[in-house]
């Protein structure tokens, strides 16, 4: 049988990509809209919760090193409930993909192509994502490994240029507690990426001493996001809500760098790479859920089903990027509550039970 596992380093890189991907374009502006510069603290708070979820994952992994999530769930809550959980996760990852796609499409349309190219974008993105998902976790993790440092370098350049342009400290503590918590709740769907790790728990080959490696990459991802938020809010102290792509916009105040030209091409390429990887991870999350619900169908079927549902939902339900943002702030947080927090809590209980039994 072909080895489909990934190592600690690749797991760490996957986590960093998940942390970076959907938090460095649109989210800073959305959080600013609700909580002003205190969006920075919302990030700290939600990252702290994410780290707790990560802790649950490590605990579960140490108790069930080689078992699938399906095995763990079926053993404790039965077949029916475990299937329900998988279906919820499928929906969760489907909408995650839709959100990520809507955001990147809106960015490309507004800042790069300046015209509608929905079909062309789908023709370009979907086959690549499909191929990556069918190729499997091991393959696309290796691809991420190859481009990881190039992506980090791209972001690093953006941060350095942004830092040069920054104008002192952002104006903190302007949001009321209700604004702060309401905004946090509205945008929790942009978090909860680590639930993906539970789905692939059996495919992660990791020793206890290697947890540190994963953790290092996660800290790197969180640090980059927080630095970006800080720089973004410091550059656009009043108008941050108007800037829909933080990574590009922290560069746009310095349009020309002598003979080098505009540097936002770096941000643009970085965003493209990140988006492809993010979409692949989420689509794989859906596919993994599908394969566990329908045991007899293989990954290719899951990809076909994903494509059909994705296109239908995108063109019928979502249509425009603004609609997706509306869902993001209305009912998706509730789905997120279930997927991001209730499932990890349930798995935490399972892990504790196992520890007691031992």
């Amino acid at each position: 049988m072909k080895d489909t596992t990934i190592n600690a380093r690749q797991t760490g890189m996957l986590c960093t990509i998940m942390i970076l991907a959907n938090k460095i374009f649109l989210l800073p502006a959305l959080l600013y809209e609700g909580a002003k510069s205190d969006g920075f603290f919302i990030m700290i708070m939600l990252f702290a919760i994410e780290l707790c979820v990560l802790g649950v994952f490590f605990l579960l992994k140490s108790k069930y090193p080689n078992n699938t999530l399906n095995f763990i769930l079926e053993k404790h809550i039965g077949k029916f409930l475990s299937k329900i959980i998988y279906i919820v996760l499928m929906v969760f990852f489907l909408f995650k993909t839709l959100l990520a796609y809507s955001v990147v499409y809106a960015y490309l349309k507004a800042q790069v192509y300046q015209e509608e190219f929905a079909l062309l974008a789908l023709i370009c993105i979907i086959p690549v994502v499909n191929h990556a998902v069918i190729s499997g976790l091991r393959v696309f993790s290796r691809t991420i490994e190859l481009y990881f440092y190039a992506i980090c370098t791209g972001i690093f350049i953006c941060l350095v240029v942004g830092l040069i342009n920054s104008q002192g400290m952002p104006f903190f503590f302007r949001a009321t507690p209700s604004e702060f918590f309401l905004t946090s709740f509205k945008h929790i769907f942009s978090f909860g990426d680590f639930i993906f790790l539970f789905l692939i728990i059996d495919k992660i080959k990791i020793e206890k001493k290697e947890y540190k490696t994963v953790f290092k990459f996660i800290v790197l991802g969180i640090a980059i996001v927080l630095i970006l938020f800080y720089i973004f809010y410091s550059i656009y102290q009043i108008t941050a809500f108007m800037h829909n792509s933080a990574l590009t916009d922290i560069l746009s105040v310095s349009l020309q760098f002598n003979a080098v030209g505009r540097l936002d091409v770096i941000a643009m390429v970085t965003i493209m790479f990140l988006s492809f990887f993010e979409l692949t991870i989420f689509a794989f999350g859906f596919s993994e859920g599908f394969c566990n619900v329908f045991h007899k169908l293989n990954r290719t079927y899951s990809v076909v089903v994903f494509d059909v549902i994705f296109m239908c939902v995108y063109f019928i339900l979502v249509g425009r990027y603004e609609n997706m943002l509306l869902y993001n702030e209305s009912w998706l947080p509730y789905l997120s509550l279930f997927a991001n927090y209730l499932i990890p809590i349930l798995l935490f209980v399972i892990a504790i039970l196992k520890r007691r039994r031992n």
Partner: protein
Amino acid sequence: MSFLNVEKTLSKVKKEFYQTSDITSRLFKKDGATLGFIYLKSITDGQLFAEAIFKPISSTKYSLTLKHLQEDILEANDITEVDESEFVDKIISGSVIIVIDGEEKALAVDLLKYPTRTPSEPPTSPVIMGPREGFVEDIKTNMSLMRRRIASNKLVMKQMKIGEFSNTKVVITYIHGITDEKIVKKVQERLKEIKIDGIIDSYYLVGFLQENENSVFRQVGMAEKPDIVASKLLEGKVAIIVDNSPIVLTVPFILFEDLQNSNDYYTNHHYSSFIRAIRMIGIIMAIVSSGMYLALQLYHYNVLPLNFLITIADTTQGLPFTPFLEILFIFLLFQILYEVSLRLPSYLGLATSVVGALILGDTGVKAGLISPPGVIIVAVSKIALYLVPQQSSQVTLLQAIFVVLGGSLGMLGIVAGMIYFTNYLNKIDSYGSPYLAPYSPRIDNDLQDGIFKENIADMRLRPESFKNKNKVRLK
């Protein structure tokens, strides 16, 4: 058990060769004994036949029995007793069959002689400093070149024949104690399964040895120099030497091997690292530069430096083609010129290159059909291609794909293409070795011979990208 009758046996063998004109038989009688010789004169050394066989037999005082011939009379090195069933095989391998009336068996004396060339520096792997010997078409010479490089009893060479009609000799070579036996077994099994009419060149075997048979990317190493093959054997790989081919195949193979060059190992390692980095940049440029130029020109012109943008705008103004068609046209023109220059005799090839590059290019620009930046970009990508000549065919295909992607989808297409092909390459495993190792997955130990090469004195372990039995190369 039957006793041989010379005349009958010779005529039977001749029939088995369908009376081909180069089958030669002779009868020889002396002191009541009758001997028959039969051989293919086109592949037998006539002079050696006279000196090592005919002269000693005619002047001998011994009786002409099988035993005397073998032990006392014949002056050849390679003499074997053979049954009647082995006659055909031996004859086509260049042996002279000596049949003695009334004996049960005959003698086969190897007098094979092919026209061969002496080892010289291969055109594709020249070195500034270092060994200049290259493989030739004769398998024996190639085997001796390998033995000279690795003078150890652990160098194993296993011969087999492939091809119903060509009966091509194929030798599997490896170092016992270093190479993983599973890889050797796998190679042997794959070669044994081949039921083909003929193997004309070693490249015929590539398709059979590859794990992904229909892949665009080659998964078998090819080397024309014994020093390169010897170093690969020392890494734990298996070499396949094929008769009539100066190219030796090696497996497992990873993509990065083609970025390495024998020159890198015969110069300062700092300089080698620099050159490898240049090679890496060059090959990436070769693949994406034309497509990226199109993407920037068509979709992302606002990110170009202003002066560069003005230059492009000036030079592309009034062109009859769209930028996409222009680049495609130049690309095709270069490819046609390349193919023509390969196939024409060298003096005509040079003329074609001059006509193509100077006259067509220059006149095309002056006539306002193509723009100078377009010509430069495509020319750079075509020249950079030959930084890694072994990968030129694959890279040419990728260039064409990226031109289409860049022209139709801009940078998004380029990025999509890069990710797609990286995934595609990551799927390939060559005999258990990840194709993009040591970078994807990253294998720390092997980075010492990656883009940045370390001193040979620091390379203590064999590459981990390839399965091998003995990890330590420097104690």
